[in-house]
């Protein structure tokens, strides 16, 4: 299980739209070896088919697809966009923080979601993720949380 490790984090990335933002976060999983390219395309396809329901909170999106779409290891990556982009969500646009979830059918999947929920339930942590200067700052935040 890999949760927001430094190589899975990209701060102040540029994306022109929602699909590019999803692909940026997905590519971190691919580069980290936890998911295949087809998983990234499955996340984009899920967005096209089912809409932006995964924009779970103001400015926060959690794109994901199914475990069988090409995940090697349960994982979460994080992209912070330099310029937030609209995903088409009525309440929570525009999206600045994108967490790509590499779904898995293992117990790790639930453990990861619990870690992410605990982190994002605290507004102070969300603010800290918006303000972090480096991936190392986020690692330090996670060590405290």
């Amino acid at each position, binding site marked *: 299980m890999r949760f927001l490790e430094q190589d899975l984090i990209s701060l102040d990335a540029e994306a022109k739209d929602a699909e590019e933002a999803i692909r940026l976060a997905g590519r971190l999983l691919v580069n980290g070896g936890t998911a295949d390219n087809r998983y990234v395309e499955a996340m984009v396809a899920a967005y096209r088919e089912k809409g932006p*329901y995964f924009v779970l909170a103001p400015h926060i999106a959690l794109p*994901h697809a199914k475990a069988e779409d090409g995940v090697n290891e349960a994982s979460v990556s994080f992209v912070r966009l330099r310029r937030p982009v609209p995903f088409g969500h009525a309440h929570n646009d525009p999206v600045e923080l994108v967490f790509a979830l590499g779904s898995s059918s293992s117990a790790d999947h639930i453990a990861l979601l619990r870690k992410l929920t605990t982190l994002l*339930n605290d507004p102070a942590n969300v603010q800290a993720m918006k303000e972090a200067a480096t991936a190392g700052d986020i690692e330090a935040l996670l060590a405290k949380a």
Partner: protein
Amino acid sequence: MKVLCVCGLGQGTSLILRMNVENVLKEMGVQADVEHTDVSTASSMPADYIVTSNELAQTLQGHSAQIVIVNNYFDLNEIKEKLKAVL
């Protein structure tokens, strides 16, 4: 009392919602059977309440359950207020 937490795929966001709905119900002292699933399975599952996003709520309008819309899945106060309003 049965509560369904619903998302598009039934694997990620509905599970997050379920964790927080369970937290809130526990805090409120409400006993409930909370499950999570995807939107197409939910339409044929019996439930008293369905908690979901505004986007998916429209798809579930024909369901006999009372639908509770949550905008911020990480805001325990919002979840609590919305549940209090219907329970």
